[in-house]
């Protein structure tokens, strides 16, 4: 965890220089939007609705002891670990029913002076380029004592997280705050707060709020208790649908679990409620979400790939599950082993195809053996039993080199094809490293399940291993007209290659969802009303729909 976090942390930023360009902090003043004073080149429309902007007391209630003119220093502080990100919501969890907001938890972190002192300490103690938190996070984020760490820079991130959850709960009184929402917000905020582009980073809080809001528009029913027994929405029905999907795909395994008395609630409740965030590392979570969010306009509900993936997770452990007893199985499913998610994604794709195209094209008969036979020969499911560890990626051929920013643009058209290959066509690939796919692979014009065609986990591994296994999958896929503007999204590409690519991916995501981003594209102005839809525009969907 820690070395990964380290690689991703942005390089230190000259605070003074920033001082002169940034004006009011999103932390600092509740009454102002973080956008005031920005020279936004594209007539940026504030994502914050007027009702929020005009009600300063909502925010100042939290921030009343903060000077309005203070710097948003926290924007430059790294988030050392995922766990530390969620630490500060603990007090929300501690309230029974979470009805009260406890102000005391916010107090300690307000002492900016002490943080500055620490920050100077960081700079003195560490060498160029690396933020200390990235190299030795445990020093600062030990679990030992909350109070002594409350004034650390990441606590300012915590305040942002708290504000988002707090405001969300206030705007959605029917849902409120439920444990697990923080897990969904986490990956969004983490990504945006690590944006290499300062302007984008300054908007991290607002943007992650709206992304969270949009995501929750679809998944919030899982958090509503009164819908638990509802037939069409709510977590109960979602679990039931996933269970029937599992049964449909692998009846033997389903029966096996059923016979042992393993209710699907025992494992899939958490999987589905928090969208797999507690089961996988953040980069894997991004990758999974990527596929989930791309699955719209299907036969059943939007984003039903979530259930395909959940079923695939169960199937992936088939051998162990069949051989284990009740306790073994529940423990295994509840503590999902750290596996390579790629085979699971492939299997989930198969399950989805089965669901979309009907059972005719697949043989769902499964045998006791490790071989799962699927009639389509181009998908070889042997790989999903290899349980290949992440380390195997390190052994992947390093023939591909990372493409420069210029190549990004040039290979855009190719990106669609790459994505297809990534998700659908494994024929002729090295099964030990399914991510490395030869260029000669015949192309398929099916709807890819990856929104971006960007493989997060590989990026991630590449970042950390130092080896250059990154292939042409680095290309950002550009399926919609709106995403042409990503070509203009060149900020920080050179200086922060890894995070820049994430940002590009997410820039598309943002533009599709909220209409934000450094885009001048007039198709996306303002905010899509989050109440009406989880807004993935129709256009790319139509283009990508299976024929």
């Amino acid at each position, binding site marked *: 965890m820690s070395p990964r976090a380290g690689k991703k942390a942005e390089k230190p930023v000259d605070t003074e220089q920033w001082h002169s360009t940034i004006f009011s902090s999103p932390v600092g003043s509740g009454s102002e939007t973080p956008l005031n004073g920005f020279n936004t080149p594209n007539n940026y429309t504030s994502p914050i609705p007027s009702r929020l902007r005009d009600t300063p007391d909502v925010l100042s209630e939290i921030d009343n002891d903060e000077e309005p003119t203070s710097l948003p220093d926290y924007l430059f502080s790294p988030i050392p670990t995922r766990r530390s990100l969620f*630490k500060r919501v603990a007090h929300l969890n501690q309230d029974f029913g979470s009805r009260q907001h406890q102000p005391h938890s916010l107090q300690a972190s307000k002492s900016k002076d002490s943080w500055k002192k620490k920050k100077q300490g960081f700079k003195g103690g560490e060498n160029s380029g690396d933020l200390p938190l990235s190299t030795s996070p445990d020093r600062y984020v030990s679990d030992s004592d909350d109070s002594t760490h409350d004034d650390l820079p990441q606590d300012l991130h915590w305040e942002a997280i708290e504000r988002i959850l707090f405001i969300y709960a206030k705007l959605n009184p029917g849902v409120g705050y439920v444990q697990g929402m923080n897990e969904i917000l986490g990956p969004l905020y983490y990504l945006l707060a690590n944006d290499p582009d300062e302007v984008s980073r300054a908007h991290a809080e607002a943007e992650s709020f709206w992304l969270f809001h949009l995501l929750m528009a679809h998944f919030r029913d899982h958090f509503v208790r009164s819908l638990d027994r509802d037939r069409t929405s709510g977590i109960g029905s979602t679990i039931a649908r996933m269970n029937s999907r599992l049964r449909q795909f692998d009846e033997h395994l389903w029966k096996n679990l059923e016979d042992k*008395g393993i209710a699907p609630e025992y494992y899939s409740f958490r999987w589905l409620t928090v969208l797999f965030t507690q089961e996988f590392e953040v980069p894997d979570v991004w990758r999974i979400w990527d596929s989930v969010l791309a699955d719209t306009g299907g036969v059943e509900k939007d984003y039903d790939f979530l259930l395909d993936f959940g079923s695939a997770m169960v199937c992936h452990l088939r051998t162990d599950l069949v051989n284990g*007893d009740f306790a073994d199985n529940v423990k295994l499913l509840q503590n999902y082993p750290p596996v390579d998610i790629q085979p699971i994604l492939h299997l989930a794709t198969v399950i989805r195809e089965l669901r979309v195209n009907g059972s005719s094209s697949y043989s769902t008969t499964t045998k006791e053996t490790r071989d799962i036979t699927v009639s389509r020969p181009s998908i070889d499911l042997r790989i999903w039993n290899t349980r290949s560890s992440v380390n195997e990626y390190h052994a992947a051929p390093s023939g591909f080199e990372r493409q420069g920013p210029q190549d990004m643009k040039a290979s855009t058209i190719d990106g669609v094809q790459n994505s297809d290959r990534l998700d659908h066509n494994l024929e002729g690939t090295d099964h030990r490293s399914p991510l490395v796919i030869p260029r000669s692979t015949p192309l398929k014009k099916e709807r890819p399940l990856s929104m971006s065609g960007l493989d997060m986990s590989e990026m991630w591994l590449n970042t950390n291993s130092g080896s250059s296994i990154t292939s042409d999958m680095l290309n950002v896929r550009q399926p919609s007209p709106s995403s042409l503007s990503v070509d203009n999204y060149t900020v920080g590409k050179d200086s922060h290659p890894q995070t820049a690519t994430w940002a590009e991916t997410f820039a598309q995501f943002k533009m599709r969802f909220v209409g934000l981003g450094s885009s001048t594209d007039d198709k996306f102005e303002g905010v899509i009303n989050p109440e009406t839809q989880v807004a993935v525009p129709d256009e790319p969907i139509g283009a990508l729909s299976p024929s």
Partner: protein
Amino acid sequence: MGKQLLKVVLIGDGGVGKFIHKRFTNAYKATIGADFITKEIELEDGRRVSLQIWDTAGQERFQSLGIAFYRGADACILCYDVTNYLTFEHLAKWRREFLNQAGIGDSNPDFPFVLLGNKIDIDERVVSRRQARGFAQEHSTVTGSKVEMPCFEASAKDGIHVEDAFLYIAKTVRIPQMELDMVGGSGSSRLEWDAESERRKKSRSCC
């Protein structure tokens, strides 16, 4: 040597520290749904007891799911935070809820409950031992239970007395042979499974 299998459910408000089985950490990760842990306990008399512990989520929202986790329980640990009186006050509600959802109701006044106060390492105790014992007595009289609900206090942080409650359950709770014969009602699915797992693992036998 016979091996007994007991299903234990941990309930109580969020944040009281039901995660007594885990390594203590301030990095709080809320339970979503319920966590499943097993514990093998070997008693002095050589009897081996396998505890299957369901550590349920504390937040109110998750209570409607309780039925999936409470069903077939052999014992229940009521957890509260000795530094937070509200968590103690809610115990009666938790207990009632548990009995209802587990399908035990009034049919079994002797259903084994254990009272467990956590966080005694914190020096701001507001729930005294006497109050805890009072709660235990009160509920024993109400239900007409022969055995008074045992009270434990522990600190998950310092690891003090954490095992005591589990040890007590392992020692005292036994599934009567009668009950196994009269399989039915709430516990049936689990017991049926027991029978099947026994077939598979011959070393195992209930009671």
